[in-house]
């Protein structure tokens, strides 16, 4: 494992070192120490390497990730794994707002709580949160899964498209066009798979499923007869 120390090396140099790796690199194990809340740590990785970050990170950690596995041994700031394409991003602590925002693929695991707008505009990413999520999570979520082992804040899944939401705890309130849907055997199986991938122990039978009522897909003329 190769260690990069952000107390000694600039963020730009650390990220450039990781960006220079080719897909067949032998340098597959990396450790970044002393992040001290720095923004944009390990963004834009494109090769299947494993990166462990020891400490708390700032904004946009592991954003745009492709193929890499990034683990934060701490908390993360706004927008962790935003626009993730593939690979795995894991936060051992809590994540601030907009975790995995607009993610297109891959897996994002927040072992603690995620704040507001978790999975906003998600487009295919799978997100598993060990704790709770804040308000407006999965806002305009288009595709992928959001699994919440704790509670969900107000306005969950507002204006949701075809993403699927599973919540084990209490939902403070559903957003516009988001409704509860039945858990079938197929959904239990999908959820079991997601929890297993995330390495989080929870019983899929205890979750409820939420998704789109599909009422916002088309212009809805309430008073057409009046004209």
């Amino acid at each position, binding site marked *: 494992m190769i260690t990069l120390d952000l107390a000694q090396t600039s963020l730009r140099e650390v990220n450039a070192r990781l960006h220079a790796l080719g897909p067949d690199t032998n340098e597959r194990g990396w450790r970044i120490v002393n992040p001290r809340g720095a923004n944009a740590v390990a963004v834009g990785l494109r090769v299947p390497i494993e990166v462990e970050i020891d400490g708390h990170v700032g904004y946009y950690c592991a954003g745009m990730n492709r193929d890499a596995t990034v683990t934060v041994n701490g908390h993360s700031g*706004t927008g962790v794994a935003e626009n993730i394409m593939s690979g795995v991003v894991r936060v051992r602590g809590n994540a601030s707002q907009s975790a995995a925002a607009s993610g297109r693929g891959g897996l994002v695991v927040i072992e603690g709580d995620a704040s507001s707008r978790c999975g906003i505009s998600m487009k295919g990413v799978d997100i598993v949160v060990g704790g709770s999520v804040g308000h407006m999570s999965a806002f305009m979520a288009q595709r992928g899964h959001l699994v919440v082992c704790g509670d969900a804040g107000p306005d969950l899944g507002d204006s949701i498209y075809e993403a699927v939401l599973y919540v084990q705890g209490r939902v403070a309130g559903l957003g516009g066009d988001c409704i509860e849907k039945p858990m079938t055997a197929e959904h239990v199986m999908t959820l079991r798979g997601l929890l297993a991938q995330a390495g989080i122990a929870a019983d899929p039978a205890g979750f409820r499923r939420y998704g789109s009522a599909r009422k916002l897909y088309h212009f809805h003329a309430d008073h057409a007869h009046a004209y």
Partner: protein
Amino acid sequence: MCGIVGLFFKNPSLHADLGIHFRTMLIGMSERGPDSAGIAVYHRPAAEGRSKLTLFSPAADCPWREIAAELAAALEVAVEFDVRANHAVLTVDGDESRARAWLAGHRPELRVMGYGRLMEVYKDKGLPAQVIAKFDIAAMEGSHAVGHTRMATESAVTTEHSHPFAAAPDMCLVHNGSLSNHNRLRQWLRRQGMSFETDNDTEVAARYFAYRLGQGATVIQALEAALVDLDGFYTFTMGTRDGFAVLRDGIACKPAVLAETDDWVAMASEFRSLAQLPGVERATIWEPRPSVVYTWTLQ
């Protein structure tokens, strides 16, 4: 975008190091606010029955000695002064209101940045590092401080438009965000008898809180009332005589991180301003919830 920070020591043995830690916190927010910076520091209490006023002079060679002497003669009280760059702290007998009235009438070019028994306010244009050096903030001791780095979006970049805004004795406010109903609220507060020194939205919020506190509200009640009366985006940190308070609006777009150990409580817009605090690796760290008032006070 702006950066805000607050540091409050529970352990008095750390008071001597307030400025050293606060410098690091404020510089950590340079990228969020390169236009101006400021600090309200709570220290060196004026003797019982006396008050401190922090004044700013736009002129380079302000005759502080002469002003202090004129003020002493006019009010027939003892006045001491202590100059720091283009600011000076005047300590006067009694509450500060007579001195403020005299200054407004006789030295209108001076601006009162803050007043009270404990609080001093230093703020100016420039990068946080420049403002810190100008006022020698690293050398300051004290029990607590709040600070701000400004990236201006809604009103001019001047010393007067910098934060913190002080509107009541030993009370000040720093703000990350923007208010959308500040014009209407300013009109309303004027009708209640409040006067304003700038067109800045945060000054309106500071005077709003001063008004509520003046009406008998507690800090918590004043902040909770703001959830109804203030429209816009905000993370506020309010400095008070014996502590500080934090409030985020219901949408909570503007960031905030809180950290607490047995020795201190700190807040910052981003964790990187907390990363150097002593014992931070053992701190409890969390994000304040939307629409929830957090307060800490000296025991």
